[in-house]
């Protein structure tokens, strides 16, 4: 944590509170994400993880507090400029249209479109090609998106976000409904982006062990507040997990990566 704080923060959130339908969804959230850092957001359902991601992009207005992107308040950026910097992969995005994968990814170039530009430039096509290459979906290029499998769809969503060439990449449960090989594929891809493209990543995950394995820092949320933050070893303790999730667990260690590992304990036993 301290080592990362020395690097310049790409995003800092100070004392942020948000409310929707006169109910507070987020209370006094403060966090920093530095360059090439992966911040995992964990917590039970309804703890405000997705709301936090949407507040960071400005989609949900803030009630109190401030969000700084590269030391400037979020409001000082215009929409187009901000979408060149921050990209988000939402859980709710449905890929039910009948357009090709390539056309869908090219929509991610919208922030770079000039006022009277109706057709993609050569550069747009090149960026889309690179995004497909990185996500290894070149073979799907001319397929219709509504005919893809769940794992392929998730990669296509990620590729569209990559076409925005963001510095900060937000993902909302990208591994949901995917088998372990696709989960690994997506998280390894994010790791590569972080290392090679110096991207900062904020990712909501339900699987605590995946979060432990792939995130540099974690925040544990409950009822719209941050309960714990720090490196996986500091956050994923038996005490923290049991108090927040109200479930019995046993702590362990991944024998290969030496990262903390959480085992569920069934109450029947």
């Amino acid at each position: 944590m301290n080592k990362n704080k020395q690097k310049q923060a790409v995003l800092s959130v100070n004392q942020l509170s948000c409310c929707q339908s006169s109910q507070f969804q987020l209370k006094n959230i403060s966090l920093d994400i530095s360059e090439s850092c992966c911040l995992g957001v964990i917590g039970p359902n309804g703890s405000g993880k997705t709301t936090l991601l949407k507040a960071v992009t400005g989609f949900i207005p803030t009630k109190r507090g401030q969000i700084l992107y590269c030391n400037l308040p979020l409001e000082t950026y215009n929409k187009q400029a901000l979408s060149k910097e921050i990209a988000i992969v939402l859980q709710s995005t449905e890929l039910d249209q009948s357009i090709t994968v390539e056309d869908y990814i090219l929509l991610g170039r919208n922030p770079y479109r000039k006022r009277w530009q109706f057709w993609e430039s050569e550069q747009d096509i090149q960026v889309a090609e690179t995004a497909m290459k990185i996500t290894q979906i070149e073979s799907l290029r001319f397929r219709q998106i509504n005919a893809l499998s769940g794992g392929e769809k998730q990669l296509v969503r990620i590729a569209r976000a990559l076409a925005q060439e963001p510095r900060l990449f937000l993902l909302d449960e990208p591994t949901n409904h995917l088998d372990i090989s696709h989960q690994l594929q997506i998280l390894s891809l994010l790791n590569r982006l972080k290392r090679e493209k110096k991207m900062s990543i904020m990712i909501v995950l339900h699987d605590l062990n995946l979060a432990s394995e792939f995130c540099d820092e974690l925040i544990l949320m409950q009822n719209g507040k941050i309960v714990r933050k720090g490196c996986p070893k500091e956050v994923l303790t038996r005490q923290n997990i049991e108090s927040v999730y109200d479930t019995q667990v046993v702590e362990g260690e991944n024998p290969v990566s030496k990262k903390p590992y959480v085992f569920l304990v069934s109450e029947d036993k």
Partner: protein
Amino acid sequence: MNQKVIKWGITFSLLLITLLSVCLIALSMGTMYIPIDQLISILLNQMNCTEYTILMDIRLPRILVGIAVGGALSLAGVILQAVFRNPLVEPYTLGISGGAALGVSISIVFALNQSYAMSLPFFGMIGAGCVILVIYSLNAFGVVHNMQRLLLIGVMISFISNSLFMLIISLSKSEQMHSIMFWTMGSLEEPNLALVYSLLIVSLLGCLITSIYSVDLNILSLGEEDAFHLGLHVERIRNVLLITASILTGFCVSISGIIGFVGLVVPHFVRLFFGSDHRTVITASYITGGIFLIICDLLARTIISPMELPVGIVTGLVGGLIFIYALVNK
């Protein structure tokens, strides 16, 4: 050059050629048959003969109204389907045409259309605009957050405006009732040439405005949230497009009466053949809408000639059957 631009150009030219051919056929056919090869010579040289009067005063205005109304209703369908992300939406399901019909019937009851020719389209647009305003303010003041609920409210407004329309008919005097009923049946006949040309201009302007927002429509159809995160001014663009859709619907309904199905069938049909990219869908729907309505009108006035069927009946029958056939085969 970008391959998509070439593809767009080819599609556009082919559709335009089809439209021109359909127009020529529609000009030549009718109670009095005028061979196509004589059309041009009549139009250029024989300005005093009966054929010239039939072509210039009856058939040509009808064709122009057909292009304008068919194109505009299809465009309104394209806009609403993209904004509401629902393939079953068209000006009729959302109550926009109901509102326009209400406005027009009020204008007929107060006999405003006899003193001012423009009062019909004006009241039609006001009626359509009011419905959009009600639907939209419910959304803006946070009464309804969800687009699907907004759609449901539109459907309810459609029922309410239809009932009010019926109420006005039942309370009006018999000659007004006749005039309203005649208008409701739907027809492309419009004796006032100034109205025909203003309809055509409004309709073409609508096509231009919608085309300017074609890429934005592609992004809007991903959903509100995704569009926001791709840097789109969702609210502003949605307002411009919905206002365009209501002006188009209001103007069309006030001149041609209630012609259902065009706004639903044409955009679907176009997507089936040309894909969902709005850069193609908008121009293709406009031209196909025109072609479709001219053909339907041709059928309506020739099937039981010299009598004439209301064109709305033909659009429903022909459109529905072709659409089911295309869906089953594709």
